[in-house]
């Protein structure tokens, strides 16, 4: 499945957002996810299906002023 992940083309084998995040070893990290420009709360990750063309942003906090 071709999706856009953090601005780059990505070939996803997972059908659910939860599974994708697990594959990426990000499930237990301090992250937030935007799914097609809408916030996807952590509680929704297990239900969020991934489809061809979806646009996913995964962010975290880094140093900044």
């Amino acid at each position, binding site marked *: 499945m071709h999706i856009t992940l953090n601005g780059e083309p*990505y070939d996803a084998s997972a059908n659910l957002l939860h599974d994708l995040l697990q594959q990426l070893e990000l499930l237990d990290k301090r992250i937030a996810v935007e799914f097609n420009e809408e916030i996807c709360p952590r509680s929704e990750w297990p239900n969020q299906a991934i489809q061809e063309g979806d646009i996913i942003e*995964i962010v975290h*906090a880094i*140093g900044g*002023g």
Partner: protein
Amino acid sequence: MQTDSFTVAGQAYNSRLLVGTGKYKDLEETGVAIAASGAEIVTVAIRRTNIGQNPDEPNLLDVISPDEYTILPNTAGCFDAPTAVRTCQLARELLGGHKLVKLEVLGDQKTLYPDVPATLEAAETLVKDGFDVMVYTSDDPLIARRLEDIGCCAIMPLAAPIGSGLGIQNKYNILEIVESANVPVLVDAGVGTASDAAIAMEMGCDGVLMNTAIAAAQKPVLMAEAMKHAIIAGRQAYLAGRMPRKRYASASSPIDGLIA
């Protein structure tokens, strides 16, 4: 001394120094410098995670814990209102519903000056969406008033361009903003050394937000401590009320009883 806290978005803080977490050598130095600064409000940036790269990399929020500090996510690097708003929404999700954000919408890479129309637009959207918005802006007193009218909880005019270390360039504008505002006014950006921070506080600012002045010092931890003292000294001088300036000398020792 009596406590002299300032309140932003309903929360009282004892430290009037707010610090950023960018440009440090590593996370360890970040943690030590921020502890030395005594800051209670600490800014962070929100960025894409590196996909497939070292998932065990230490996380900033493990060093600067939200249990210990008030985390102030910023919208640094956003050059339009929609991106800034999305960044704040992601930050709120990341920090478990936390509503306090530092809004900055930049207009130009060279100066990093705020894009004021876009800042006003983003501020309006964010306030309506329930955010507590501390807003980085130009030192224009009329724009400061507009941002306060929109409902921003703190106005943060620049002293000089971000990361320039030039100190307060437009003192009378900052003074005008301080005197007119009914919300806290913090100088954000452009402070270079301790005296710059002290001057801002002597002028009556409620606080100062800085990053590069500490992180880019030769000894960041020592500068963090210097800034802590400068903020306290400047605040106390403001509260004490400085003596009037006079053109000619006025002897400190009495004239009476001189031997000749």
